[in-house]
């Protein structure tokens, strides 16, 4: 067991010194892998942030019922009774047309425009909170309300959030596919890097095999090399995204001030970062394993 640890420690330190022996080549290798990983990881970061935003803004499943302009107080009362007997809603609120106008006036410098209107163009409205957020149920509810007397129009207010959600789901698939393609690229990169290493270390491999080295012994430093290369590439990708976010967030400041909301893109969580790093290391290791497996066969006796 102690021997096993010693052998692995030697392979590990040997790999590090081999990386250090050709610093420029190692750096470029790591940068290539880093770039390949930064793309899907970066998309993932943006997506995760958008998802957070969508969650924050996503309202309760709400519908607005707009009445016809000539609806009387009696009509409003009728509808109120109907809504009270409705079982699949969790609440509702009446917005009289006068109040709606006041709200509009107080906002966004529209006071002048509204003052110029001869009559109040806004209808009375009910804002209804449905108990279910399911799209089909909301649609059914909406059709129901639309059939009621004196109802001009019904809007499902949370529609945009749902659209954003399904758009984000699409984005997640895109990230997954991109990640798969670039994972393949990473495996190919390590495969080739290790292939070159095997070629330059032909003599060493041949001699080691001749004097009794097992395939495992010969394979080990290459596997370490692939794994370390992958992990270093993952770390490089993490750094690239960190720098990109730093720049992006600075640029985002004026926009955030304009809308008066805290708009900041967050980096990967510690857990996600660790997972990305381990995944990159595993891919590098796998590329090296494929390469060594493919190229060590040449040294077996015929």
């Amino acid at each position: 067991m102690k021997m096993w640890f010693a052998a692995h420690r030697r392979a590990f330190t040997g790999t590090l010194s081999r990386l250090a022996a050709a610093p420029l080549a190692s750096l470029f290798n790591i940068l290539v892998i880093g770039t390949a990983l930064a793309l899907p990881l970066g998309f993932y970061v943006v997506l995760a942030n958008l998802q957070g935003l969508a969650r924050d803004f996503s309202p309760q499943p709400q519908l607005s019922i707009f009445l016809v302009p000539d609806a009387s107080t009696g009509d409003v009362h009728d509808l109120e009774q109907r809504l009270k007997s409705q079982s699949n809603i969790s609440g509702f609120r009446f917005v009289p047309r006068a109040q709606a106008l006041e709200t509009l006036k107080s906002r966004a410098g529209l006071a002048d425009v509204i003052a110029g209107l001869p009559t109040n163009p806004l209808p009375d409205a009910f804002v209804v909170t449905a108990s279910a957020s399911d799209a089909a149920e909301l649609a059914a509810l909406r059709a129901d309300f639309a059939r009621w007397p004196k109802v001009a129009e019904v809007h499902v207010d949370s529609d945009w959030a749902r659209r954003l959600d399904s758009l984000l789901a699409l984005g997640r698939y895109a990230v997954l596919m991109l990640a798969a393609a670039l994972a393949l690229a990473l495996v190919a990169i390590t495969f080739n890097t290790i292939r070159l290493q095997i070629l330059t270390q032909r003599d060493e491999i041949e001699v080691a095999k001749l004097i009794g080295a097992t395939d495992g012994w010969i394979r080990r430093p290459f596997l370490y090399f692939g794994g370390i290369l992958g992990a270093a590439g993952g770390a490089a990708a993490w750094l690239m995204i960190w720098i990109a976010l730093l720049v992006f967030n600075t640029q985002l400041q004026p926009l955030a001030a304009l809308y008066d909301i805290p708009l900041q893109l967050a980096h990967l969580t510690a857990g996600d970062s660790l997972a990305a790093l381990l995944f990159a290391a595993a891919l590098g290791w796998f590329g090296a394993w494929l390469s060594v497996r493919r190229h060590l066969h040449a040294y077996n006796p015929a």
Partner: protein
Amino acid sequence: MTDIVLSKVCKRYAGGHEALADITLNIATGEMVFITGHSGAGKSTLLKLMAAIERPTAGSVIVNGQNIGALRAQGIPFLRRNFGLVFQDHKLLFDRSVFDNVMLPLDITGFDRREGAGRARAALDKVGLLHKEKARPITLSGGEQQRLCIARAIVHRPSILLADEPTGNLDADYATGIGDLFRDFNQVGVTVVLATHDMHLAARLQPRLIEVRGGRIVS
């Protein structure tokens, strides 16, 4: 007891060239054997079959009771650890020091490094290269490189020493020194098999002689 048993061994290469035909040979533990013959007679092939570097086309090669023809690839490294191999072209690694070249067989078997260092120095001392342990092999003369190759072959204390033309391109003085080394190993019980056409060496060491001609044993 016998270390190496070859019976009815043939080796034919792809392309039809028959390097060895119908070789039957026993080499006992502790024996010293010279395989002689012209170049191309099949001496090297014979050694390669013994070291499991090549597999026989027909017949069986049995080393320490293990049939090389039937040996799985995973078993070969462990079989090879019984051998010390001395190559005609040395096969030294030029990217590391003389000392590290000798350490290689011990690293491979997972030998403790500090204990191994002592053994490596003892092996270097044996071949008279201890003062050059930090040098690079490229700076050594041909004779020194050959001795370094021998040091690497004996450092893990193998039971069988296989050497292919160990005195091939050395002048007489060096050749004599190297011959004495092999005799010393043989005297402590190591089986020594040499492929050589150096008859001066044979005259000095008085080994059992096996002459190969055209892929067959003639005497």
